[in-house]
C-alpha cells in the first residue's frame, strides 16, 4: 500500500498514529548476521508518548531507523508498521518515504543536534530550507519563537550554538512540516539535567497538542518525566510494555527491574554481566544468563504476553 488517508493528523485522529507488528531487522555482515530487532510489536497513539528504553546496543535506534526507511543496504526488514492506520512504512517505496513521509508525517528529533546540523550553514538557512522543501505555512521566526530561540540565534552557525540551542533548532526543523508523529532518538544525550528537563517539557507539550511521540532513550528519568507508555528492549526484543508509571514503579521483567534498580535514587546496583552480542544471541530467553531467577523454562524464548516476555514473571 502506498497511499493513505489525507494529512488531517491533528484534526480527526485515527486511533493509532503508528501500529508496529512483528518488526524484525537483521544485518548481513561478512561471516555474521546481526539480529538487531526481533518481532517488536507496539503502538503509539495520538496525544501519547511511548518511551523505548534499554542499554546501548540493544537495537533501539535501529528500530527507529527502520520506521524512517533509513537503514543501510545490508539490512533485511520484515513485519509491518502502519502510519495512521494506512501506509505501511516497511513496505513503502523509498521515494514515497522521502517525499510524503519524512518531515511531513514523521518528524525526527535527532541525537546530538549539534552534529546533525550542517556545520557550514546558519541555523536560519537550514530552517528556511526545511520550510521551503516541505511547502510549510510556518515561518522561521514563528518556529524560532515557539521554541524560545531569538531571531539573532538563527543567524548563528551550529558551532556557535550551545547544546540546548542546537536542540531547539533541531526541534524547530522537525516541526516545520507539522508531522503528526515525532521520533526522538536519544534527544537528550550530552545535555545537562536542566536542559533534559526542558527538552522533555517540550516533548510533553507536543504530545498534549495531539501529536504522537516515540522517544528512544537510555535515560529512565527523562522517560519518567514525559512518557505515558514504556517499552523496555533487551537484546533486540521488547521484554516489557505497559503504562510508564506502572512499569517504572512495579517492573515485572527481571531486566526491567534491574534497570530501574540500577538508578542512583534506587539501589544503584548494576545488573550482573553484560548484554549478549546481537551476532550471537543465546538460545531461549536472551536475559537468562544474567537472570538470578532463571528456571528450566527459560531455555525457550518467552512470548510477549500481557505486557511481559518472561516465563517467571507470568507465573
Amino acid at each position, binding site marked *: 500500500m502506498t497511499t493513505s488517508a489525507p494529512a488531517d493528523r491533528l484534526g480527526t485522529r485515527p486511533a493509532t498514529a503508528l501500529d508496529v507488528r512483528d518488526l524484525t531487522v537483521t544485518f548481513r555482515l561478512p561471516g555474521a548476521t546481526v539480529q538487531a530487532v526481533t518481532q517488536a510489536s507496539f503502538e503509539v497513539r495520538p496525544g501519547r508518548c511511548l518511551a523505548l528504553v534499554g542499554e546501548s546496543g540493544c537495537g533501539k535506534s535501529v528500530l527507529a531507523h527502520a520506521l524512517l526507511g533509513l537503514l543501510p543496504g545490508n539490512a533485511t526488514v520484515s513485519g509491518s508498521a502502519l502510519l495512521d492506520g494506512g501506509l505501511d512504512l516497511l513496505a513503502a517505496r523509498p521515494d514515497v518515504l522521502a517525499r510524503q513521509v519524512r518531515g511531513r508525517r514523521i518528524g525526527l528529533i535527532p541525537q546530538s543536534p549539534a552534529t546533525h546540523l550542517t556545520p557550514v550553514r546558519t541555523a536560519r538557512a537550514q530552517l528556511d530550507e526545511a520550510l521551503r522543501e516541505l511547502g510549510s505555512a510556518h515561518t522561521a521566526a514563528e518556529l524560532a519563537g515557539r521554541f524560545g530561540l531569538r531571531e539573532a540565534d538563527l543567524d548563528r552557525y551550529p558551532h556557535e550554538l550551545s547544546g540546548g540551542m542546537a536542540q531547539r533548532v533541531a526541534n524547530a526543523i522537525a516541526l516545520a512540516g507539522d508531522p503528526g508523529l515525532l521520533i526522538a532518538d536519544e534527544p537528550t544525550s550530552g545535555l545537562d539535567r536542566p536542559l533534559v528537563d526542558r527538552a522533555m517539557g517540550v516533548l510533553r507539550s507536543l504530545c498534549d497538542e495531539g501529536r504522537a511521540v516515540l522517544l528512544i532513550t537510555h535515560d529512565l528519568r527523562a522517560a519518567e518525566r514525559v512518557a505515558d507508555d514504556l517499552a523496555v528492549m533487551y537484546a533486540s526484543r521488547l521484554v516489557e510494555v505497559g503504562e510508564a508509571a506502572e512499569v517504572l514503579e512495579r517492573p515485572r521483567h527481571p531486566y526491567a527491574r534491574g*534497570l530501574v534498580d540500577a538508578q542512583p535514587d534506587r539501589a544503584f546496583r548494576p545488573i550482573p554481566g553484560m548484554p549478549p552480542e546481537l551476532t550471537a544471541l543465546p538460545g531461549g530467553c536472551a536475559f537468562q544468563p544474567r537472570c538470578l531467577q532463571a528456571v528450566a523454562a527459560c531455555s525457550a524464548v518467552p512470548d510477549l504476553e500481557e505486557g511481559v516476555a518472561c516465563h517467571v514473571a507470568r507465573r
Partner: protein
Amino acid sequence: MLRADEITVRYGSRIVLDRLSFEVAPGEIVGLGGPSGCGKSTLARVLALMLRPDGGRVSVDGTPTPGWRQRAPRALRTSVALLYQQPRLAVDPRLTLAEIIAEPLAAAKLPRDRAAELAERAGLTPDLLTRRPHEVSDGQLQRACLARALTLRPRYLVCDEMTTMLDASTQALLVGVVRDYREEEGAGVLAISHDQVLLERWADRRAELSGAGSRPVTPSPSPVPRSRS
C-alpha cells in the same frame, strides 16, 4: 592533597575560572556540580594537569607543578588520571581494547600484566578485548577507558561526566569500580556531573561551581561522613 590555588583560566577575553581554589583529599570523593558552561570541564583539565592555567598553581600531594610549557612532567601527570564524557573521542580508533587499556603501561615501559585484571574488574570479557572501538558499544568502551585510567595506579582520579552517555546499569557498575579503587588505593576522586541525584549517591562531599566568569569558590559546607560498604 590535589590542590588548585587561585586558578584563573581565560579563553580569549572570556574568563572561565576566576581565582578558584579547590582541593581533593586522598581517599575522598568530591562531587562537583554546576550548570553547562560554568567551567567544570576546564577545572577538570587543570587538575588533571592537561591544561596550564593562566594564573594560580596546582600541587599534587604537596609537590607544586613547576612552570611547564607543553606538558607537565610525566611523574606528576600520571599521578592524576582523567576520564571523559565521550569515550569515542578519548581513544585511538585503530587500537584494540586490550591495547587501549595497556597504552599507559607501554608508554611507561612497564609490564602489561595488570591490564587484564583491570579489564576484568571493569566487566570486560576477554573476547571484547580483541575488538576495536567501532565494534563495541559506548558503555563497553567507557569500561575500557576506566580500566586504562587505573593502570598506572593514579593517586587521584578526575571523572568528567563519566556516565552521562550511559544507561543506569553501566553507570552503577563504573561508579562501583571507582569506589572500590578509592577503597583499595586510598585515591582521591573528583566526580563531575550535572546529575545531583548521582552525586548525592556517589560523593562524600559536594561542591558547586556557579556561572561562568563569576567567583565560583564554593567549598562544600558539610562533609558527608565517609562510610561505604
